[in-house]
């Protein structure tokens, strides 16, 4: 190996005088696949944003293909052959899939500066096939689910002539099947000689895919070398700065059947053929598994009154609740964490404290004038910050937009935990959260359940569901097709149910 494809040389970056990257140096060989791991806020995305031309380093330099490389914007990076799949999906919901893919490089009709629509459709369709998304390229992105959007983002990265692809947590909303498809795609791309940087909090994936690993902690490289030289445990120790013995908290050995808190009877969404019925018990963590687009998120939205319900009844503590708005539900102790933290979960330009307390403001204003008690707000904020493991570098007043993806997720979660809900519906709760913090969050979920609440967890990570749930429901085509008690947990059976390859029950 002569010259590496890409060299980071003592790259530094500060925001508001706080150093986020402190002299990062490492190389990526031609055709190499490097895994980049680290806690939330370690600086992974920031480093990649520098590489992708979205940010300029405060100090240090980069070399790409042996030449000095200092992109001023993402266009520069793309021209050099660097594609970037962002952690926060960077798609325009008001444009179609095809338009999103070719936004900066539309094929034209020869000399006329008009877009060649047929060519666009043809090429987009091919790219979509490559990533395993069977949708019309003309569809507006706003009609897609998060997982589908993620695949579009990947298709977009493949549309340009690339030499290096950056994947910033590409699997956070992909289910098992799509993840496997993506991995197959990555293998194909690698065989073409493309180099890649792969960021993920799922260490198993990182080990499986990457030749080399780089571990970041607090903006410093704390470990760098061939993947074989690390073990899962040693990597976690490097990232987190301490050893972790288990990924999931211990569960109660057995749960006596308890009363139902949340019952769903024959609920049907508008425009959907199937009914859904299930029951969530006190102290239970119920998992909802299924493939992408199985309708899990949609079900959750119907339950929370965000999408219209065609028919069916929902009971809370045995009481029928009808045509309720999120506000009423929250008042009764039902909370819902959406899978879409940026557009539906956060006020990005508001501060950490404001976001954390948004759903529980009334508690801090127990007086006729609805006057907020600054002190009570302050205590609530600092307690929950600790509970979700938000790093203490950032002040309560910092605006959420400038936080790392994982830390943003912790804030949405923290907002709902502050409510101490009776029923908590979580849609992809650990999206983008690092290993250390995940454990903490699982523990919080467990604690909440132990206190008598019911928790419904939608997740695309089967390990996660099997690790924390008391029971798992499997969904396919907007219907529940299987139910597994903890004793019956079985990867194969869940997958079969999700794919519909075996008639369950």
């Amino acid at each position, binding site marked *: 190996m002569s010259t590496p494809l890409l060299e980071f040389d003592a790259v530094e970056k500060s925001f508001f005088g706080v150093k986020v990257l402190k002299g990062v140096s490492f190389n990526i060989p031609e055709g190499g696949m490097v895994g980049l791991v680290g806690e939330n806020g370690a600086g992974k995305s920031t480093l990649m944003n520098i590489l992708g031309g979205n940010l300029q380093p405060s100090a240090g330099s980069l070399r790409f293909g042996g030449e000095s490389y200092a992109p001023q914007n993402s266009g520069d990076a793309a021209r050099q052959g660097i594609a970037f799949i962002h952690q926060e999906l960077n798609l325009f919901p008001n444009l179609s899939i095809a338009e999103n893919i070719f936004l900066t490089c539309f094929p034209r009709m020869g000399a006329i500066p008009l877009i060649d629509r047929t060519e666009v459709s043809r090429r987009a369709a091919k790219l979509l096939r490559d990533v395993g998304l069977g949708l019309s390229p003309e569809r507006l992105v706003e009609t897609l689910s998060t997982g589908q959007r993620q695949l579009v983002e990947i298709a977009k990265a493949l549309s340009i002539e690339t030499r290096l692809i950056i994947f910033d947590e590409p699997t956070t909303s992909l289910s098992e099947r799509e993840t496997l498809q993506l991995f197959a795609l990555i293998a194909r791309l690698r065989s073409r000689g493309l180099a890649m940087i792969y960021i993920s909090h799922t260490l198993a994936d990182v080990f499986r895919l990457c030749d080399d690993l780089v571990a970041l902690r607090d903006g410093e490289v704390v470990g760098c070398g061939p993947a074989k030289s690390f073990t899962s445990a040693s990597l976690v120790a490097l990232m987190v700065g301490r050893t972790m013995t288990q990924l999931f908290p211990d569960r109660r050995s057995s749960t006596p059947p308890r009363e139902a808190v949340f019952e769903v009877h024959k609920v049907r969404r508008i425009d959907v053929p199937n009914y859904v019925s299930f029951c969530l018990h006190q102290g239970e963590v119920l998992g909802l598994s299924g493939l992408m687009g199985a309708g899990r998120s949609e079900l959750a939205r119907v339950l929370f009154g965000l999408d219209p319900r065609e028919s069916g009844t929902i009971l809370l503590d045995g009481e029928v609740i009808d045509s309720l708005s999120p506000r009423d539900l929250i008042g009764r102790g039902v909370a*819902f964490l959406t899978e879409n933290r940026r*557009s539906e979960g956060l006020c*990005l330009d508001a501060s950490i404290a404001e976001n954390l307390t948004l759903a529980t*403001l009334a508690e801090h204003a127990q007086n006729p004038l609805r006057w*907020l008690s600054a002190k009570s707000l302050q205590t609530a904020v600092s307690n929950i910050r600790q509970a979700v493991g938000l790093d203490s570098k950032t002040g309560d007043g910092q605006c959420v937009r400038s936080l790392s993806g994982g830390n943003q997720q912790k804030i949405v979660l923290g907002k709902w935990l502050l409510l101490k809900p009776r029923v908590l519906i979580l849609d992809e709760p650990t999206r983008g959260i690092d290993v250390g913090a995940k454990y903490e969050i699982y523990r919080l979920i467990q604690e909440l359940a132990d206190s008598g609440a019911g928790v419904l967890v939608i997740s695309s990570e089967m390990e996660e569901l099997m690790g924390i749930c008391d029971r798992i429901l499997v969904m396919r085509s907007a219907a529940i097709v299987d139910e597994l008690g903890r004793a019956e947990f079985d990867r194969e059976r869940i997958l079969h149910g999700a794919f519909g390859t075996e008639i369950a029950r």
Partner: protein
Amino acid sequence: MTIRKPVAAQRARPFTQWLVGLISSEYLVFGLTLLLVALLAPFTPGLVSIANLLNIAGYLLPLFIVAIGVTLVMITGGIDLSVTSVIALTSVVGAKLISADGSATPTVVGLVAMLALGAGLGAVNGGIITCLRLPAFIVTLASMMFLSGFAVWITQSKNIYNLPASFLALGKQLSIALGLTITLALCVQVVLQRTVYGRWLYAVGQNPTAAYISGVPVRAVTFAAYVVSGFCAALASVMLSARLETGSPVLGREILLDIIGATVVGGTSLFGGKGKIAWTFFGVLFLTVLDNALNLLNLSQFAITIAKGTVILLAAVLDATRHRLGRQNA
């Protein structure tokens, strides 16, 4: 490994720091107003005299009151173009009620009616915008046209005179207006900063979807902002009508752009989620003082207009610089 030292940052001299501090503070617009006065005072006889300051205040207060309501609406990400028409309509309705030529009801009743009408009109705007989910711009544009047309129609273009002395006193006594305005401004600012409602208002402006999911009564909050806006317009209408001793169907017709302009110049965002009453005050003050000073300078009409535009632009450029500096240095 080469380690590059961060330079510049540490070496900033006190003066530079002070300058950066000033430019990046939220009092920039206020500072600019003072600067303007300081620069123009030597050339403009009477600019800083008590009489002139009172004069400015008399003109500024009603503007500021309307702008307070508009600020609330703009924080929710909406806009209220109908305020000037609300001013006109409440003016003629109120005047019709209390005028000796009209039904000569007691002043207090007239006042209450005016304020109630203003709030009511705001409620209609807010109701349509929130319940029918129509864009605020077009709804309030339509109601601006409608209400203004209605005010002219019911008066058949005639002004209403002979208002009772008790009403006119409101216009003569600057202290009453001043007291009212300060109370209102402080109340609204406190509500914005310290109450649940205030937090909700910002949240709605920043991300209505997230706010809705977090249990914020988005519609009620938005609705209330328009009601307050209508109420503020009516209050300003009371002051203006009393000051001009007339119920006029075209009252305030020309000041819409001034109001929205002042609010935006102060720093409130047209896109919602950002704004403060103090900023709006600075914005109104800036524009009013600029107007007053340019007039006292005795420039010709076109020069005044050009100068006004240029100064606004310079202030805005400074403001944009402030944001950029803020991003780099905070």
